[in-house]
């Protein structure tokens, strides 16, 4: 998998590049600010760009805007936005505009190599990924709307879906049969009123419903 990293803190950028290289990923470019990131992506056309939400020039949410731009201009490149903020709002801003090949993780997550690399590969596969902590907080808050109708098990399935797990991953994590998982997923779609369509798209819509409920 070919990766571009955008992060203004040099130590962190280099450390992340080394870590990803160690686990066998191909870091094809790094950048320290939003314009540099866009240049690198144009040049290298990576599978995924890892983007720090807060970057020069304005140090607000330049990274988020750059990520949305990348998704608009390069259909084959996914983006993973790293943030310090737990609020679902920024994640929502990203996923509402670009629900596919996009992810939003807390920055702390990068040292958790397994989760991190898993998220990268799922984004490269076209799915969307939401940080487990954010998902947990959102699920904890459901007490209104259609999410209220979900059973305990269905909530569990939805939260794992939001973190980017496939049905196969779900059955492994929850130790359920593939068929049971599929039934749960279908029930979730039905209860949330998500119409029949391609599988990826429906999963993304379910995650968005989760985000909106927050």
């Amino acid at each position, binding site marked *: 998998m070919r990766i571009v990293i955008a992060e203004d*803190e040099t*130590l*962190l950028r280099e*450390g*992340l590049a*080394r*870590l990803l290289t*160690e686990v066998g990923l191909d870091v094809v470019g790094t950048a320290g600010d939003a314009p540099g990131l866009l240049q690198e992506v144009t040049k290298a056309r990576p599978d995924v760009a890892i983007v720090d939400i*807060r970057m020069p020039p304005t*140090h*607000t*949410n330049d990274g988020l805007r750059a990520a949305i731009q990348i998704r608009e201009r390069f259909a084959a490149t996914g983006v993973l936005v790293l943030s*310090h*903020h*737990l*609020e*679902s*709002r*920024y994640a929502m801003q990203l996923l509402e505009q670009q629900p596919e090949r996009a992810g939003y993780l807390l*920055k*702390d997550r*990068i*040292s*958790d*190599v397994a989760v991190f690399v898993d998220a990268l590969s799922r984004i490269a596969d076209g799915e969307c990924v939401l940080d487990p902590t954010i998902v947990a*907080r*959102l699920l904890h*808050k459901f*007490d*209104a709307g259609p999410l209220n109708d979900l059973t305990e098990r269905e909530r569990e399935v939805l939260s794992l879906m939001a973190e980017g797990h496939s049905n196969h991953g779900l059955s492994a994590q929850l130790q359920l049969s593939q068929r049971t998982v599929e039934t749960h997923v279908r029930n979730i779609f039905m209860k949330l009123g998500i119409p029949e369509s391609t599988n990826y798209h429906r999963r993304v819509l379910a995650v968005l419903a989760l985000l909106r409920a*927050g």
Partner: protein
Amino acid sequence: MFRMKGRSARILGLAGGLLISIIAIATATASTPYSFGGHSRPFLAVELAAGWSLVAAGVLAHPERHGRQFGLALLTAGSAWFLVEFDNPGASAVVFTIGLLLHAVCPPLVAHALAGYPARTPSRSERVVLAWGYAIAFVPMGLLPAVAFVPARQGCTVCPDNLLALRSAPDVVWWSLNIGSSLLIGWALTVLVLLGGRIRAATVAARRRLLPVLLPGVVYLGLVGAWFWHGLGPGFPGPDVVGRALWLGQASALLGVAGGVAFDRWQAWRVRTAVAQLVVDAARARPGGLREAFADMLNEPSLNLLFPLADGRTVDAHGRPAAPEPGQVVTGLRHDGSVVAVLAHRRGLLDEPDAVQELTTLARLALYTERLQAETQVKLDDLRASRARIVAIGDAERRRLERDLHDGVQQRLVTLALSIRLARLRASPVDERMLAAAETQVQATLSDLREVAHGLCPAVLDSDGLAAGLEALAERSPVRLTVTGLPARRLDRSVEQAAYVLVAETLKRTACTEATVQAADDGARTTIAINTNGTDLAATTDLEDRVGAVHGSLTVQGATVRAEFPCAS
């Protein structure tokens, strides 16, 4: 002392005027064919009205408002008006002689009065012209023909004796009177030009005072010129139709002058009563009332009343910073040597220092009241602004700390976690366990730090506004929070911050499980009503301060909190 002298002079003048008018009437009625006023009863009435009204105007004239010489000159002119009747055949010898000597002194006296109106000192050239007028009236028109006129020898058999006659010289009389009349015509024209020039040079406001008195004066002097022109030949204007008409015109013009003085006195009285009313109203005056009263009184709507403060600022009655408008001039209203207030007005409106002083004296109490109100308001505004600045500095500091935590400490901790992870990849199993424990610690620290940073100032509140901030609050807190009616536009940063703190603290302090935040925004003010199912909110002083610092107001009823914030324009 001077006032006493002025008063006795006026009483003397009044008595003299009465005496002279009685003699004049007696003479006029006794010399019907030769007299102007003696022609008929209406003529007599006009003659009396013109003279007495001038005398009355002279008595009425205010030494400070109209000038010290004006009243006396007008009073004397009123008496002198009757002297034209003295040199008539029906008079006694003494009266007849006085008449011969003084019959032409009325015009110079009127000119003298006008030159000093209102309360001004005639210029050097004006004084020369006035003296020249008196000289003509006394010498070629008075003394010279008088000494050379023996009535019985020069065809006036019905005339009484001329007590001044030295010897009969008809040529001297003729030449003297004709040259005197010509000089008087030239003199009247000169005075006309001078008065006309003064009216033209006056500002609009000053002209309002000048015209009622000076205009009839100008008409009078014009008619005097025409009258003496008509008299050229015999040397004095006779009581024929044209002569009488011109004489009637002069009487009317003099009535006009007296009327002008009365009008001016009435105006002054009106101002005084209006100002007196202000003093009475001072106790219940509202800010700005004095400006309106002054504007009304001086008939100038654009007038401004400003208060210069000790620190150099100038404010209006509401304590708002204010300055004279372009084209306005300022006049200081002084009391006890310091400027209590300044009036900003059109040029020329308040040219007389006496009028300004009178205004200040009468309205002093009201002026001080308004000034005090304005000063208090300014101090209050200053305090409010200072409080808002202190809170704003605090808020800015919290935002900076929040950013610093993210960009500094948090970033380093993430890098540290990453380094530990890299080290773990090559560590021995024993080291690996220790490093794993260290990494867990770092992750926990990161999580704590995130809470601290969020508590300082939620990033979304700063970047996306109040609605986003409250959304984040709802996400974090265990309370079921419903937010409605928040405007999509960004509010003032300080208002957003205050509203956020208010909601967060209310949720915390009422220990509620459910709460609604209802917002309403009409463009001018934003209202936030918080209803909770928790305990009553006690001790809200700090929240009131927080809301008050952004000029908002807070009302608390049990567990319901309502705040109103003005929108910054």
